[in-house]
């Protein structure tokens, strides 16, 4: 006779069913409704592609979409350049120093985005610190107002994405076997060469996942373009908000959301696919 397996670990199917049900109600159902709205004529209720046609026919909307993606992309690039060294340093720290460093890294996340953006609103104007620093670095010659400019919005997006990127990168960098880096030194490669030939390729999957997270967060960012764009930098999220709250065209807003969703999904899928291919080299 077969003995019945004794259960003592209490890993229960409800552990997954309950959260899934929760997600279902607050996520999948509204999502489904949105998809339906986007292809449904607001008068007749019949299937229509008019909202999507309206979007793709008008250069203005395409421009908003590409601005959204480009701003997000720039912020990702700067998050990688600025976040990687930070993560590298923290990954090589130990004990209390490391705890302090990680705390400082996530400290900005304890403050709401709105408050942090108020900070940037003080930094970015013509008389602000940002302009003064750029002048001191001879990047600009005249005082310049960055509030309501693409640069200003990118700064805000970097500010939001950087802690996430750095935190995500710590573990992949830490997982690089120190002996492998040592082997590189012993076999004739200096620090820079070792970094580009060994450390960077080994952490590239981490970079991709960090970059994708920041990209996804920043494409969907709402407060940053609203507060730092000053109404002059229109991105997809603002436009969707405008359509729902002021123009009351929910169907068109739904279509915009669907476009944003699919474009982001496409980029995310493509990048992970490409990074998987690239990982196998030499």
């Amino acid at each position: 006779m077969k003995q019945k397996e004794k259960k003592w670990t209490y890993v229960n199917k409800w552990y997954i069913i309950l959260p899934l049900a929760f997600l279902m109600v607050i996520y999948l159902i509204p999502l489904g409704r949105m998809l339906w709205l986007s292809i449904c004529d607001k008068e007749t209720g019949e299937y229509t592609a008019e909202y999507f046609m309206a979007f793709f026919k008008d250069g203005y909307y395409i421009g908003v979409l590409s601005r959204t993606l480009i701003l997000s992309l720039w912020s990702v690039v700067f998050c990688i350049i600025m976040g990687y060294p930070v993560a590298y340093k923290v990954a090589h720290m130990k004990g209390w120093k490391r705890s302090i460093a990680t705390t400082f890294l996530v400290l900005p996340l304890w403050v709401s985005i709105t408050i942090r953006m108020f900070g940037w609103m003080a930094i970015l104007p013509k008389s602000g610190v940002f302009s003064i620093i750029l002048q001191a670095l001879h990047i600009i010659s005249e005082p310049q107002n960055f509030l309501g400019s693409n640069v200003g919005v990118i700064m805000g997006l970097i500010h939001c994405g950087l802690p996430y990127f750095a935190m995500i990168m710590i573990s992949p960098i830490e997982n690089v076997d120190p002996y492998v880096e040592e082997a590189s030194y012993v076999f004739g490669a200096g620090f820079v060469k070792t970094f580009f030939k060994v450390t960077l390729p080994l952490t590239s999957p981490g970079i991709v996942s960090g970059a994708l997270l920041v990209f996804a967060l920043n494409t969907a960012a709402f407060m940053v373009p609203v507060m730092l764009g000053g109404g002059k930098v229109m991105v997809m999220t603002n436009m969707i908000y405008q359509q729902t709250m002021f123009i009351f065209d929910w169907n068109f807003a739904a279509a915009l959301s669907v476009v944003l969703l699919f474009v982001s999904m496409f980029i995310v899928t493509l990048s992970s696919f490409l990074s998987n291919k690239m990982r196998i080299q030499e």
Partner: protein
Amino acid sequence: MSSQLELKELVKEYKGFRAVDKINIQIQKGDILSLLGPSGCGKTTTLRMIAGLLTPTEGDVFLAGEKITEKPPYKRDIAMVFQNYALFPHMRVYGNVVYGLKNRGIKDKKILRKKAEEVLSIVQLEGVEDRFPRQLSGGQQQRVSLARAMVVEPKIMLFDEPLSNLDAKLRVQTRIEIRNLLKQLNITAIYVTHDQEEALTISDWIAVMNKGRIEQLASPTELYSMPKTKFVADFIGHANLLEGVVEKISEGHVEVMLHNGILVHCISPAKIHVGDKRFILVRPENINLFPVESTEENLFDAVVEERNFLGSVVRYKVRLASGIALECEIHPDYAFAEVRDAVKVQFNKEKMVLVG
């Protein structure tokens, strides 16, 4: 003739603790020297200072007559085989093997390919160039790691416990192969290990280290038969160490009174004086057991406490009437005695050594 590698008064200090304490080593070209010792004895620290991965607090490292103490690892003409292989996981075997060559400025694809093929055939790994390290077994990975080191023809090759991740049988086989290869190619090598058997088989010279110092640097044979200190005697092989007082010194031989009143003769490499309290080393294979009714000279009464059959020998633990416990190894054909039997013990006089 100047030596291939010289360590001069090498010291490594960590916050007041001396991990390596004034080490002096010279080795000639083509020789294999092992740094042997328990964990924390400073052997790996020494190796990493030779590699340039650590900077010595004091002292100097000379490679082929050139002072390299301050040079970073990538400017030293060295190669290293790591304990966990440390292969580049994102590169194929070929990429791993030619990594050092590329960094030494060899760009020609044909030469690289040829050298890689040559060295892989030396380590008997033909045809794996296009595989990734993770697709190979532990033994194969270690061969790749060996090939990666050999292909750059370094002035010195460093081994950091390279076999400790392999299973016992493979370990025994690989260490012989490594020795043969190094000898065949006349490569100078420093080999760090905590396994005394490995050190005995692989090296020309062994430096036994303890607490950051070299206890004794000698050939494997000398180290085994003429250990200078109690630590070395105990660390290399199985040892019976008997405490005694030096009674009389005559040419090459000394008479020592064991603390139970037995007077024994033994050889002594060290400087001693009458009245010194010293240890006598008797290897287990240099003790014979006789039946209790034997009447030969120099026999001592004892009782068998343990009897362990190990295949080629039987290892006994016997206790002398005076209370001293001894380990001895007897050929199975003569291992008549069982546990609790009374026996007579004989020491091989020629093989008793006085140590520090």
